[in-house]
């Protein structure tokens, strides 16, 4: 056997730990399925030919004391076929770690909501088998990617793959308005409990992100569209430098705001209170936050007309309840 790295094989720069992970899974499979084609192993384990050959070169030096030939892994590569024997300590792969088992179960549970990706019974059987091997009850884990109408998801998914424009009815939470828009659906995805559609909005003439649970109608149009540059890097919330900012003092009881919404700065005040600075892309959003927080939040500083957002909204709502004088402007 040649010295490590010799024989024209490029020495892999992948850390030893990562190569060990792969080998601990690959050795049992190749041993059990010998002889196997080099290409098949490369495809199965997502490894390049040169990296595989470099890793296999090490195996004849692996075994157990007294390290005589009959205790070392025996590897033969001939005509692009690998034959592996005597890998006794590695005749089964390493167990799945808890996060790996959880990831598979979570993926399996949520896949039914993903359009075009429901492999049905084989997946159910696979999950049951993996869970049994791990001694886990898969029904003790539940994953819900977000509330969504299956018909909305299916319609948009079909439109995206057929490149058909759609007309959607959409409720813009930030601006508090309902509108009809023509959209070229580019990508559907779930993130942190909600489903989103990224699409080219004809009204805004820009790429926009829509929350699926705020889409109340989808109408397939005859017009088609050309694919656009990848929309996958779109963030859901993108404040710009020109968006107005507000600074709020929040009581300890309102600290949940920090966890829930993006804050540009958070400074601790006395008694658990905090001072936060946030970008505001739409006034109704701030109105809602301030009326919900009531006495627990006060505006310290605000750009444009945002300083009165809470008072204005509270007075408008009080007017609905017929509270006298409440709709009059401040002072």
């Amino acid at each position, binding site marked *: 056997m040649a010295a490590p790295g010799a024989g024209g094989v490029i020495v892999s720069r992948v850390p030893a730990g990562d190569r060990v992970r792969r080998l601990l899974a690959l050795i049992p499979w190749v041993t059990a399925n010998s002889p196997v084609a080099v290409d098949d192993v490369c495809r199965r384990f997502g490894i390049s030919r040169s990296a595989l050959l470099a890793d296999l070169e090490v195996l004849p030096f692996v075994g*157990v004391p007294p390290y005589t030939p009959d205790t070392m892994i025996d590897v033969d590569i001939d005509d692009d076929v690998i034959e592996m024997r005597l890998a006794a300590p590695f005749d089964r792969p390493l167990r799945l770690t808890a996060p790996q088992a959880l*990831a598979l179960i979570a993926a399996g549970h949520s896949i039914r909501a993903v359009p075009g990706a429901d492999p049905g019974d084989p997946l159910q059987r696979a999950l049951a088998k*993996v869970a049994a091997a791990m001694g886990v009850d898969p029904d003790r884990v539940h994953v819900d990617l977000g509330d969504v109408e299956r018909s909305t998801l299916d319609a948009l998914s079909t439109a995206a793959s057929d490149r058909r424009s759609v007309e959607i009815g959409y409720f813009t939470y930030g601006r508090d308005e309902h509108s009809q828009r023509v959209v070229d659906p580019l990508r559907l995805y779930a993130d942190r409990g909600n489903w989103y559609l990224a699409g080219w909005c004809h009204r805004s003439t820009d790429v926009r992100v829509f929350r699926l649970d705020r889409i109340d109608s989808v109408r397939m149009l005859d017009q088609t569209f050309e694919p656009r540059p990848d929309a996958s890097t779109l963030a859901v919330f993108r404040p710009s430098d020109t968006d107005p900012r507000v600074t709020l003092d929040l009581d300890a009881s309102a600290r949940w705001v920090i966890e829930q919404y993006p804050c540009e700065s958070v400074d601790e005040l006395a008694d658990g209170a905090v001072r936060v600075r946030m970008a505001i892309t739409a006034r109704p959003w701030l109105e809602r936050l301030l009326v919900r927080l009531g006495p627990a939040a006060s505006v310290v500083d605000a750009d444009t007309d945002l300083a009165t957002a809470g008072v204005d909204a509270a*007075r408008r709502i009080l007017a609905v309840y017929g509270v006298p004088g409440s709709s009059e402007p401040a002072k």
Partner: protein
Amino acid sequence: MQKLERLLNLTAVLLHSGRPMSASELRERVPGYPDSDVAFHRAFERDKDDLREMGVPLELEEIPGADPPLDGYRIPRARYYLPDPGLEPEELAALQLAASAVQLDGVEGVEALWKLGGSASDPAAATIPTVAAIPTDPNLSPLFEAVSRRAIARFAYRDEERTVHPYRIGFQRGHWYMRGFDLGRDAVRLYRIDRIDGTVEVGSPNAFEVSDDDDADPNLVSEGWQLGVEPPVRCVLRVDASHVPAAMGHLDEGAVIETLPDGSMLVELVVTNRYAFRGLVLTYLDHAEIIEPQELRDELVEWLRQVPGVSS
């Protein structure tokens, strides 16, 4: 290259022997360690960390009969080997598809697939773009272990130490939750995992039976206003026509009492958490109105008067 070889040999030797072996014995048996004591110990420490990080169950236990007493390292075969789940090729392909579409942040899903036999089919044909990424939490994995092994979990939550029989975990509305029986409170409770302070401590397995209190409903989280423990109050809410589609995202069809001529809608809710209910109603700003009971109307008006600046 030496390190790759050494890690494999270290694992092979420990798996093969099945008994605890001291560091000096391993130094003798496993080729490739440096000669000097200092360099050996440094390399051996790193190797142990690497193996544990991969999930190799490397345990420390006393070597039987050693005098003076000495600790040794052991890899119990039963905890190392993955029992063969016996997956058919189509089942492996289905798992692969699921794992590529939905990912748990920070988990190498592909390594799990290697352990199960690698990609069953042409990767290009069997992958769809990732459509969902689920966030993770440092305490998620310990709690998953506790749930699957029926082990007691101890942790701090809302400034109190909790001892819990964890029944199930779930991801809903963007957060991971755990439901379990809180021994201190003698009742089933729901915990948001990212609000747990510090680290969850997991006890020994098979410590409890899941009680009958745990209903089969996989939905851990109800709508906020149903979550409380206050005496139920029946409320009628009017929602403007423009906001009906948004409101129906939170409500059952059965909640609708009637649609008024102007398109607005009367809906009925049973409220057990007034705080959460107020949050819901105020979400609609001046496009919703509590019709009854009068008591909740009055409470809302009183609340709005406390918004800084309103009563000045």
